């Protein structure tokens, strides 16, 4: 595959690993703990495990797996709302595949489906709109979740539904934004992250300028990265070079896909359809101001929250879970007492075991070879 295979080249990987080793040998002097580099995005976490990148790195560098998995951070109360909508007689509930296993306080969508709810897995929100057109006597609700990457797709689908007057289509909006969450993380007192691998596909929509505060206010380097293993290794090297030079800048390793200004057409659609919520709850992190969006009044007819009464109950995370600490890099997944025991991919308790992009699920599935040794 073009633009994929080139960035999975083993010879290039060896070169990069050598360079990372060299730089960490230079940085080692006077350093008593590893440099913690947070990859914000769950897609990066997945790639790190899929390609076994952790095992290639020197001990002085460690990846900390950030909060960027929208499936993982969805609070249980919102899943309960999904289930309540999906269980309505008239509803076809369309969702991305990986959202089906997320547990609510009583059940997941997969369980609701088994009990008779009409839940359909789709690849695209466009397919949900097609379902609505094919089933005019049913209410088709699409489960909209994801970061800025995914927001344009649901916004454009709502605009399409409005244009084509598909009145039996609506969106259950759970979109969240990464920037307020990064700010919240960075504002924590004991936040021990030395640099960031920035989310490539979010950036292709929002561009690279929204990250500037990370360098300017918090003096941390961030490199926007692509998703192939070479992309990740190169981005890590770029972060380490900044650390070595005592710099904190926003760099863009993924320039083939990410323009500095992002995607204006996508941002226009997002702003047309969505407005910020005052606050949104994240599983494992709690409520974060300005981190969610909802449909504007003008598109209220397509808002599932307005169309159907939902329980809208807050459900606390299980007390014994340490998801928050893992998300912020303060604890490793295997440090949690429930990891691999009460909490496993089949019956996840905490946020990070839910999706294969969650740090705990990734460790469970692909194995933290380092963690095992520790």
């Amino acid at each position: 595959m073009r633009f994929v295979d080139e960035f999975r080249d083993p010879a290039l990987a060896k070169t990069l690993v050598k360079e990372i080793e060299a730089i960490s040998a230079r940085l080692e002097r006077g350093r008593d703990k590893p440099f913690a580099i947070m990859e914000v995005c769950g897609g990066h976490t997945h790639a790190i495990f899929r390609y076994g990148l952790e095992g290639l790195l020197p001990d002085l560098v460690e990846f900390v797996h950030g909060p960027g998995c929208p499936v993982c951070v969805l609070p249980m109360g919102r899943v309960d709302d999904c289930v309540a909508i999906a269980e309505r007689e008239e509803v076809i509930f369309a969702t991305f595949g990986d959202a089906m296993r997320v547990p609510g306080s009583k059940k997941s969508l997969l369980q609701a489906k088994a009990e008779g709810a009409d839940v359909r897995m789709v690849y695209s929100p466009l397919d949900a709109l097609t379902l609505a057109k094919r089933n005019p006597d049913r209410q088709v609700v699409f489960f909209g979740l994801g970061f800025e990457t995914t927001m344009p797709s649901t916004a454009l689908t709502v605009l399409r539904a409005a244009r084509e007057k598909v009145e039996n289509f609506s969106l259950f909006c759970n979109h969240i934004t990464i920037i307020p969450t990064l700010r919240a993380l960075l504002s924590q007192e004991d936040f021990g992250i030395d640099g960031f691998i920035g989310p490539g596909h979010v950036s292709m929509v929002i561009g690279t300028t929204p990250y500037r505060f990370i360098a300017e206010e918090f003096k941390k380097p961030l490199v926007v990265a692509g998703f192939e293993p070479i992309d990740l290794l190169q981005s890590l090297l770029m972060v380490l070079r900044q650390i070595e030079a005592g710099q904190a800048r926003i760099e863009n390793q993924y320039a083939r896909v990410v323009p500095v200004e992002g995607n204006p057409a996508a941002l226009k659609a997002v702003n047309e359809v969505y407005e910020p919520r005052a606050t949104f709850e994240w599983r494992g992190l709690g409520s974060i101001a300005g981190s969610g969006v909802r449909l504007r009044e003008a598109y209220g007819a397509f808002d599932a929250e307005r169309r159907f009464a939902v329980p809208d109950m807050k459900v606390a995370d299980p007390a014994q879970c340490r998801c928050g600490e893992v998300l912020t890099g303060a604890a490793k997944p295997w440090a949690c007492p429930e990891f691999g025991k009460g909490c496993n991919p089949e019956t996840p308790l905490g946020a990070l075991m839910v999706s294969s992009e969650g740090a705990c699920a990734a460790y469970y599935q692909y194995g933290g070879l380092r963690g095992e040794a520790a």
Partner: protein
Amino acid sequence: MCLGIPGRIVAVADADAMLCVVDVSGVRRTVDVVCVAPPGEPLEALVGAWVLVHVGFAMSIIDEEEAAATLKVLTEIGEAEAEMEALRTGSIEPVPAPAR
């Protein structure tokens, strides 16, 4: 988050609806191209372009020059390293770039 993969636009599916067909290694899918359509130009202009596809939407036109530039930087790192290695081992022969 946000699985996205490169594909090539191979046909216009429905110009009025802003839909094109993308090919990913022989797997085809109709995608929305609103976010990458060149303003004021017919959609045919997109045919042949490589785009980044996310949940049925083309979200970015892949910049082939930037991709080549990224790979060039990587190759140069490899060459510089080979030179360093030559210095360390005392080799005086010119060192070829590592095979790609």
